[in-house]
C-alpha cells in the first residue's frame, strides 16, 4: 500500500521534471523558436518576383469537402481556388480563361461551344480532356450524386445536354435561351474522371481526402483541425507558380487569429474593421478592402400576421425615416468599408444601376405617408441574431429613428441558429423587420429566387406580376442591350415599391503580410480571397 502511493508520487515527480525540462530547453532556444516566416526578409524592397516561400492563409474552420461539385462553404471554396483550375472566371466584369481557351455561343443562343486548352494535365499527370468535363456535368446532373449545383443545369424543367465533340471541345445544348448559363459555367469546375468514375457515392468517397486537381497548387497534406498544405504544381498550364507552397491554417478564434498574424504564424487573414488599426500599426501588413458583391439591407416582411408592411406607403415611410449615411456609420463603423446602396443588385452585377428611386432622410415626409396610408400607432417586431454586431447596431439605430416618426419597434433577440431558421422560413409571420445580407454573383437572373412571387428565397414575400414577368424575360433574353433595359426596369420597380431598404455594399478587409507581392495579378476576389494564387510571390 505504502509502496504504491510512493510509486505514484515518484512517477508524478518524474513527469513534472520532464515537463519542466521541456519548458527550459524551450526557453534556451527562444531565438529560433519564433516561426520562420516571422522574420521578414531584409531584401523586401526589390519587388522582383522570386521563386520559393510558403504563404499561410488563416481560415476559420476545417474545409467541409475538397471537391468542387459539393463545396459550398467559404473555406472549401478558398482552397479549391488554388487546387482546381476553373474553366474561366469573371471578376469585376473581366473574363479570364483558365482551362478553357474560348467559349462561343451560337446565333440562336442555344448552343455553347467550350474549347479547352490543349495539353492540360491533372496533378497526377493524367491528361485533362473533354471527357473530364462531360463526366463532371453528368455527375452534377445525376440525382444520386447529390451535387449542390444540379438545379443550375436544369433550365425550364429540362436538363442541359452536354456532349464531347473531340478531346478539347465540349458542346452544351440548352433547352431554352438562358444568358445566365455563362455564370453557371463559371461556378462549375471539372473533377477528374479517372479518379471518380468507379465511385458509387462521390460525396462520401475517401478520395476527396487526397484530392487530385488541375490548379496551380497540388495537394500535399491535410491535418484535421490544423491545416491543409498545397505545394507547387510545376506543370501548371498558366506557368510555374512562384510560391513553393500554400498552407491554409485553421484558426477558429478571431482574437487568436489577429495575434497569429502579428506573430507571423499566419500571413493572410480576414480582419474586422475594429481591428484594422491594431494590425496596420505593426507596419507589416497591406490592408486591402474590396467589394464582396454583398448587399446589407433592411428586410420588410410584407406577409406578417399584422400585415403592417403590406402597404407600399408604410415601407416608403420607414425608408424616409432612416438616414443611410448615419446608418453606415452606426453599423459598419466607417464609410471606408461600406458604399451606400440603392439598388438590390450589387455593383459587380451586370446591368447594375444606383440611379433608382431613393428615399433621402425626411421624417416629415415619412409622417405624411403614414397618415395618408391611414396608419397610426404602428408596432413592428425586429428579429436580431444575438452576438451579431452589425445586426445589433442596425436594430438599435432603426428603433431610435423610427420612434421619431411614431413607430414603435420591439427588438427580439435570438440565438443565431433560431434566427437563421426564422429568417429563411418564407412562411414565418411573427416578425416584420430584419437586417440581412446576400451575395448573389454577377448575373442578375440569380436574384429571381429572392424577388419572384413565391420563390424559394423570397424572404420579403413580395408579389408583383410585372416583376415576375420581367425576371422571366430577362432570364431568356439573348440580346444584351434588351436584357440591360429589362434589369434596369426591374431595379427601378423594386426600389419604387420599397421592397427592401438597401443600406450598403459591404467590403471585406484582408490583411496581407507585406513580404508577399503580386497582389494585383492575383486579383482579390469575393469569398476566395485571390482569383489566381499562382501569381503571388515572396518579395
Amino acid at each position, binding site marked *: *500500500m505504502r509502496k*504504491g*502511493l510512493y510509486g505514484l508520487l515518484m512517477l*508524478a515527480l518524474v*513527469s*513534472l521534471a520532464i*515537463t519542466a525540462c*521541456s*519548458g527550459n530547453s*524551450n526557453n534556451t532556444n*527562444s531565438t529560433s*523558436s519564433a516561426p520562420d516566416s516571422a522574420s521578414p526578409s531584409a531584401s523586401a524592397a526589390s519587388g522582383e518576383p522570386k521563386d520559393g516561400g510558403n504563404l499561410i492563409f488563416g481560415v476559420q*474552420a*476545417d*474545409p*467541409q469537402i475538397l471537391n468542387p461539385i459539393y463545396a*459550398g462553404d467559404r473555406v472549401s471554396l478558398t482552397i479549391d481556388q488554388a487546387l482546381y483550375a476553373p474553366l474561366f472566371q469573371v471578376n469585376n466584369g473581366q473574363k479570364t480563361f483558365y482551362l478553357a481557351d474560348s467559349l462561343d455561343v451560337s446565333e440562336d443562343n442555344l448552343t455553347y461551344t467550350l474549347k479547352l486548352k490543349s495539353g492540360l494535365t491533372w496533378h497526377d499527370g493524367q491528361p485533362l480532356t473533354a471527357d473530364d468535363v462531360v463526366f463532371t456535368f453528368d455527375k452534377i446532373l445525376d440525382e444520386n450524386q*447529390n*451535387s*449542390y449545383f*444540379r*438545379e*443550375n443545369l*436544369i433550365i425550364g424543367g429540362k436538363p442541359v445536354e452536354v456532349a464531347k465533340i473531340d478531346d478539347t471541345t465540349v458542346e452544351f445544348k440548352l433547352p431554352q435561351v438562358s444568358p445566365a448559363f455563362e455564370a453557371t459555367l463559371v461556378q462549375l469546375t471539372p473533377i477528374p474522371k479517372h479518379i471518380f468514375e468507379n465511385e458509387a457515392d462521390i*460525396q*462520401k468517397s475517401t478520395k476527396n*481526402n487526397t484530392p487530385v486537381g488541375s490548379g496551380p497548387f497540388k495537394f500535399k497534406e491535410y*491535418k*484535421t*483541425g*490544423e491545416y491543409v*498544405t498545397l505545394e507547387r504544381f510545376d506543370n501548371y498550364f498558366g506557368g510555374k507558380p512562384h510560391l513553393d507552397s500554400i*498552407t491554409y*491554417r*485553421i*484558426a*477558429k*478564434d478571431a*482574437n*487568436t487569429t489577429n*495575434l*497569429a498574424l*502579428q*506573430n507571423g*504564424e499566419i500571413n493572410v487573414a480576414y480582419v474586422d474593421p475594429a481591428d484594422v488599426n491594431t494590425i496596420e500599426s505593426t507596419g507589416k501588413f497591406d490592408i486591402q478592402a474590396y467589394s464582396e458583391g454583398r448587399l446589407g439591407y433592411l428586410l420588410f416582411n410584407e406577409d406578417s400576421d399584422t400585415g403592417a408592411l403590406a402597404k407600399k406607403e408604410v415601407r416608403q415611410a420607414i425608408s424616409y425615416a432612416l438616414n443611410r449615411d448615419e446608418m453606415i456609420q452606426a453599423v459598419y463603423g466607417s464609410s471606408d468599408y461600406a458604399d451606400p446602396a440603392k439598388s438590390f443588385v450589387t455593383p459587380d452585377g451586370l446591368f447594375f444601376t444606383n440611379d433608382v428611386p431613393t428615399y433621402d432622410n425626411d421624417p416629415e415626409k415619412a409622417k405624411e405617408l403614414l397618415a395618408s396610408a391611414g396608419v397610426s400607432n404602428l408596432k413592428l417586431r425586429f428579429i436580431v441574431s444575438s452576438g451579431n454586431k452589425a445586426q445589433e447596431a442596425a436594430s438599435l439605430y432603426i428603433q431610435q429613428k423610427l420612434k421619431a416618426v411614431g413607430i414603435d419597434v420591439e427588438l427580439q433577440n435570438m*440565438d443565431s*441558429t*433560431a434566427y*437563421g*431558421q*426564422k429568417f*429563411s422560413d418564407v412562411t414565418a409571420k411573427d416578425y416584420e423587420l430584419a437586417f440581412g445580407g*446576400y*451575395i*448573389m*454573383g454577377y448575373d442578375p437572373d440569380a436574384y429571381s*429566387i*429572392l424577388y419572384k412571387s413565391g420563390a*424559394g*428565397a423570397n424572404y420579403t414575400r413580395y408579389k408583383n406580376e410585372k416583376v415576375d414577368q420581367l425576371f422571366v424575360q430577362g432570364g431568356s433574353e439573348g440580346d444584351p442591350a434588351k436584357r440591360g433595359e429589362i434589369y434596369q426596369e426591374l431595379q427601378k420597380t423594386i426600389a419604387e415599391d420599397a421592397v427592401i431598404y438597401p443600406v450598403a455594399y459591404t467590403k471585406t478587409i484582408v490583411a496581407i503580410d507585406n513580404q508577399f507581392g503580386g497582389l494585383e495579378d492575383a486579383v482579390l476576389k469575393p469569398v476566395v480571397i485571390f482569383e489566381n494564387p499562382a501569381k503571388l510571390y515572396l518579395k
Partner: protein
Amino acid sequence: MRQLIVRRLLQTIPLLFFVSIACFALVKLAPGDPVLSFVTPNMHPEDIERIRHHLGLDQPAYMQYLLWLKEMFRGNLGYSLVNHQPVAHQIIERIPATAGLMGSALLLAVLIAIPLGLAAGSQRNRWADKLINLISYIGISIPIFWLAIMLIYLFAIQLHWLPVMGMRTIGKESAMDVIKHGILPCSVLAFSFLSTYVRYIRSGTIGQLKEEYVQIQYAFGSSKRIVLFRHVMKHVLLPIITLLGMSMAELVTGAIVTETVFSWPGIGSLGMTAVKGLDYPVIMGITLLSALLLIIGNLLADILYGFADPRIKTTR
C-alpha cells in the same frame, strides 16, 4: 469485486440508451436546420430539398433516431451531415490531441495542488493559506479565454518564446514541437483545474490534522513534514481519486474554450463545430463516448478506492 464490475457494466447499457435519447431530443428541440450550415443563398431551393432528402432530414425525428440506433447496433456511428466523413473516424482521429492535452493538464494540476493544498491546510489562516486561497479564487473566477489571450500576448507576441496557436509548426513532425505548442493551453487548463483540487486537499488536511494518529506521530517525535507527506497525504488523496475518475470523460470531451482559442485540433473544437451546425451524428458520437467514459471512470474510481482504503471494501 467481480460481481460489482459486471453489475456496473450491465448498468451502462440502459444508461447510454437514455443518454442517447435525451441528447437526440435536445438536438432536435433546438431551433435551426443542419442544412443551413452548408447551403449558400444562391443554391436553388430544389437542390436544398434534394440534399435534405438525401440526408434523411425530411423524415420525422423519431424515424431519424431509430435509423441512427439501427446503425449504432451495427457499430456504425454514422456520417457527419456536414463533411460526410464517418463520425467514429473523426472522433478517433482527434482523441490523441485531446487526451494528451487534458492528461498533462490534469497531472500538472494535481502535482501542483498536492503541496499547495497540504501547505494551506497545515498553515490554516496564516499568510501562506491566504495566499494559496487567493490563487485558487483567481483560478476559479478568471475567464479562461481571457487568461489564454493574455498568456499568448505575453509569451508569444512580447517574448517570442512560444507559438500563438495550433499543435505543431506546419509540416513539422517532432514531439518537442508539439510540447512547445502545448505549454500554453496546458498551463491555462491546469490553472483552471488547480483550484478545485487545492480546496479539496486543504479541507482534507484540516480534518486529518485533528485526528488522533497525528497527535501520536507528533508524540513519537515525527517532524511536521514527515507527518504531512507520509501520513496525512495518504488520507487526503482519497477524494482526489474520485475527482480524477470523474475527469476521465474530460480526457476525451476536451476543453471547448481552450481548444477553440488555441486552435488545438481536439474533440472539444470538433464538438463546438458540430453543435453550431446541428450536426447530430457527431454530437451524438461525442456525447455517448463521454457518457461511457464517465461511467467507466466512476467505476475505476470505486475500484481504486477499494485498493487504497481496504475499510471501504469490507463495508460493501
